[in-house]
């Protein structure tokens, strides 16, 4: 009987020796990885409603959205509608009373589609971005001359003010323009899934359909068209909400030292 027990112990001892054969890892690798949220982020531009509130000549709204494709790349776009009235005055003639030249209103919508590329490497658990991006933008709009005056440096017949023109309430419709946009911006997570962002943009006008009698002077989404230049500048301040659809850990490159 004793012999029987001894043989069992020996048998078990064989097992324990086998368990011990695996060496103890004294430098365990950190296996906790932060899974970054992926999803659709949508929001509105804050500057346009604010300008609409403070400036009676302007109303505008812009909806911004992006969808995260990879670690750094986002599909991004904006949709907006703007209406702005301009009063142009003669600025290079020094007169006691101002000389109005013409007054016009531009009204229309635009869409911008493209990508954002995040260049910022977040610390653990953060979801901020400093990004560069590109867009292709398209706008349809109309321009209305509200009233006009006839510029004439000779003041013989009209000594006080320029003569009235006859183009009041003339609408030039069906205008369109497209442009390429380059932008630089940031997005910071304020609270969980709520982001505050800002961007500055340069637009390069690609196409511009205008009326022969009255050229396009301002394009919704593009801003002012400068004489003899295809560039426009813009900006936005956005607040947006991320709808997290899934989470994915950032791919960690295997350390080179592990390859032997």
């Amino acid at each position, binding site marked *: 009987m004793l012999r029987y027990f001894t043989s069992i112990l020996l048998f078990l001892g064989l097992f324990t020796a086998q368990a011990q054969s695996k060496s103890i890892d004294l430098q365990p690798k950190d296996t906790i990885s932060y899974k970054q949220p992926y999803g659709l982020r949508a929001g509105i531009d804050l500057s346009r409603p604010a300008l609409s509130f403070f400036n009676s000549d302007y109303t505008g709204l812009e909806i911004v959205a992006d969808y995260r494709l990879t670690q750094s790349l986002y599909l991004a776009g904006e949709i907006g509608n703007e209406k702005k009235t301009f009063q*142009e005055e*003669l*600025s*290079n*003639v020094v007169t006691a009373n101002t000389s109005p*030249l*013409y007054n016009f209103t531009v009204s229309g919508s635009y869409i911008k589609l493209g990508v954002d590329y995040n*260049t*910022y*490497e977040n610390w653990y658990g953060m979801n901020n971005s*400093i*990004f*560069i991006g590109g867009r292709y933008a398209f706008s349809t709009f109309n321009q209305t001359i509200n009233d*006009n*005056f*006839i*510029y*004439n*440096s*000779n003041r*013989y*017949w*009209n000594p006080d003010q320029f*003569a*009235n*023109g*006859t*183009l009041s309430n003339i609408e030039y419709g069906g205008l369109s323009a497209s442009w390429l946009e*380059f932008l*630089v911006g940031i997005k910071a997570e304020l609270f969980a899934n709520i982001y505050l962002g800002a961007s*500055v*943009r*340069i637009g390069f006008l690609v196409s511009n359909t205008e009326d022969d*009698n*009255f*050229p396009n*002077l301002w394009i919704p989404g593009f801003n*002012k068209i*400068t*004489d*003899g230049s295809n*560039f426009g*500048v813009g900006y936005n301040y956005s607040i947006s909400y991320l709808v997290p659809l899934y989470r994915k850990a950032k791919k960690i*490159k295997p*350390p*080179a*030292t592990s390859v032997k």
Partner: protein
Amino acid sequence: MRRMSFKFPRLRLSMSGIRLSSIGLIFLIGLLAISSCEKDDICVDGDTPLLIIRFYNAADSTALKSVASLRIIGIGNGEPVDTFTDRSSTDSVAVPLRINEISTQFQIILNSDGDDDAETGNIDTLQFNYETNEVFISRACGFVANYEIETDTLTVDTDNWIQGIEITNPSVTSQDSAHVKIFH
């Protein structure tokens, strides 16, 4: 050495990102600075043209002939036209047309002298009938008027010094050449 080769590409990746965005920022700031002062603010692109009248010899229709002590008064204004020296001898004048009207009348006075209400010169009254087009020039200038002269009417009196009128260029869109010839 192997450890170095692992860290290097990661560092370079973020560096290139920062460099790209900072170039973009500098570019944007530069563009904003340029766009703040632009030629769009100053009207240099055009003007409403004046009607250019040249005076020719009635006996020799190719020879210019000066009008002695010329004064031109726009009817409805009463003041002498200010585009040339009043009561000077000249063979070429530029007169402004009324923009909102279909015609403008001028008193063209030869040998003008005396007080405004006691003119002693020979007054001839000439009327131009025209069509006005409003043309957009540029953002800074806005609209100017261009004219298309249709007819001219010389009021007949007992001693007209103007013997003939010829509209040589009915499209008044620039001041590069004469629009009307007056023979005397």
